[in-house]
């Protein structure tokens, strides 16, 4: 589904990713862990198509298509979703209106029918059950005045409505208390499906107690330096990232 090969990315003149490779199959849950500054967020942003991220080398294929050539909105329509580490506040744009516009834009881009407001509301009610989010947040401006936890849950709620094929969660666990963390994890687990893959970017292992990954990768200095199963995350928790650095870099990729 997703095939990243030898990806090099520069941001503001500095090389952040230095030959990253990663392959993700449908239905899989991948965790990308690593110390601060390793390039974790850069990976999420470059996959979503954020302007200002310059790919100097390497390829990214998504369902056989060259992802790097696509505009952010085309990637979204193709099924790529990034849950932001810092979701932005958009004063004056109603949350429900925003989400319906996004969903309909994606459906239209895929050649499907657009949902009218009744159909959309029905969908939203279903998804609200999955993600415990107060319905009054839907009538507020996007993320405006939301608490940190509400913003993160709103990201997961958007994911539930948009039903992407590949969801990238960029440190969705950071800043969450244990209850919010569990809710986010339940939301993610509810969306696991044979045709949907996840890349969960995280600094800590604790989210992975609730979302059990199929594969765990360690990202350090712009590359995947070690890959393993869920047990790798526990070793990292026990030994710290220094432990990885001391070892010989493992074969890149998975």
């Amino acid at each position: 589904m997703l095939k990243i090969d030898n990806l090099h990315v520069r941001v503001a003149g500095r090389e952040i990713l230095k030959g990253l490779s990663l392959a993700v199959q449908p239905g899989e849950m991948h965790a990308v862990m690593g110390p601060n500054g390793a390039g974790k967020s850069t990976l999420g942003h470059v996959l979503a198509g954020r302007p200002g991220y310059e790919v100097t080398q390497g390829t990214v294929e998504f369902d056989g298509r060259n992802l790097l050539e696509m505009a952010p909105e085309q990637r979204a329509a193709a099924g790529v979703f990034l849950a932001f580490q810092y979701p932005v506040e958009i004063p004056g744009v109603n949350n429900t209106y925003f989400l319906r516009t996004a969903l309909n834009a994606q459906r239209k881009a895929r050649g499907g029918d657009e949902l009218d407001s009744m159909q959309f509301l029905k969908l939203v009610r279903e998804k609200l059950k999955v993600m415990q989010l107060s319905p009054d947040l839907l009538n507020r401006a996007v993320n405006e005045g939301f608490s940190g936890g509400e913003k993160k849950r709103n990201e997961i709620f958007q994911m539930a409505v948009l039903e992407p094929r590949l969801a990238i969660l960029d440190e969705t666990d950071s800043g969450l208390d244990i209850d919010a963390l569990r809710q986010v994890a339940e939301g993610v687990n509810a969306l696991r499906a044979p045709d949907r893959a996840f890349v969960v970017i995280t600094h800590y292992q604790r989210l992975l107690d609730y979302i059990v990954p199929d594969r765990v990768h360690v990202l350090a200095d712009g590359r995947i330096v070690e890959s393993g199963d869920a047990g790798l995350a526990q070793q990292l928790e026990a030994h710290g990232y220094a432990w990885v650095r001391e070892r010989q870099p493992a074969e890149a990729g998975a």
Partner: protein
Amino acid sequence: MNAVLSPFVQSMHAAAQAARLPGSGIGWLDQARAEALRAFLGRGLPDTRNELWKYTALRTLERRAFAPADPDAATRTLDIDALAPGTRGAARIVFVNGAFRADLSRLDGLPGGVTLAPLSRELAERPEPLRFLLGSRQRDDDAFAWLNLALASDGVILRVAPGVRADPPVHVIHAGADAGGEIAWHARSLIEVGEGARLDLVEHHVGGGAQGHFADLVCEVMLHPRAGLDWTVLQHAAGAMTLLRRSDAQLHDDARLTLHALELGGRLARHEIRATLAGDRARFHGRGAFVLRDRQHGDTELLVEHRGRDTVSDAMWRGVADGRARGVFHGSITVAQGADGADANLSNKNLLLSRSAEIDTRPVLEIHADEVKAAHGATVGQLDENVLFYLRSRGIPEAAARRMLVRAFCAEALAGIEPRLRERCDALLAAVLPGEVLP
């Protein structure tokens, strides 16, 4: 007087000599008009050394000449219901190219105590009460106000008697239409809300056609003690018109003015709003947005003066410029000596959508009293790239995302408008913003 009169001034001079204005023959009025003409001719058009015209140069206007009026204004066909939806069946007064149109207006059906009439009719029937509106009592230096006084042939006279609640809203519609050539018109209006009375007023500036007409509109608003006015202005006359408007509001003790203005430009569209909080505890609440595009020039001058004690003013304006448009916002708050306890707030945020667009904003605060709370701020910026990326990452195409953000930017200033009018504002905005319309 200037040795050589500019084509503009010459054409106005000629119009004044040829005009048979309503009420002519009334001694005090003839005299006031003659004085006003002299004052205008003596001044000529303001130049950019004038603080209120600093960013709006009139050199091009000065070189143009306009025909005095549209002889066919009374018979031009215009679909007012389409230009000002929601006004059919409501109390409304319609002017086409400056001329009152009885056939398109509906002046009856108003609650008792509310009078709505064209100035031309009032001058014919009972001119005396208009002496203070049209007499030579103007004190300031505004050349266009003098010109207006000299040449105003019509306008709105709207009065609400003390204690009367005048809802539903009264609509005032000024429509421009293509004529035989480029013409000029001048309208002078009076809105008077009596003691403890309330009025809902919607002012529409529509049409405009493809011709570069010139319109000079002055509106005086008198709010007696405890009077309340909800005033919404929808200006989308746009087209090629030069539209200069001045609205002067006087607020007496405990009077309240709530103004919402959506201004969608023109070749040159200027609105000078003066709110004078003359009485104690008078309150002005102003919200406005302008959206300019192509080569439009828009100028909003908001001049608030606190004179009474414990007065409150709270103004928030939003400006958007695209293409090669030029926007100007000048927000000035003066707290006069003795206006103790004033609370004044003014904010103006602007958004540039293209590299060639420009907005100049000048907040000015002048305080001569004690125990005053005053805050003001102004910014000019671009759309936030982070927000834009967020919307696009959810599948919203870039043009639609930009559009959504501009609408949201303006919506903050228009949020307080009554819902049906707000929908109308949204539709008007949607029509002028670039990009695809999404459901």
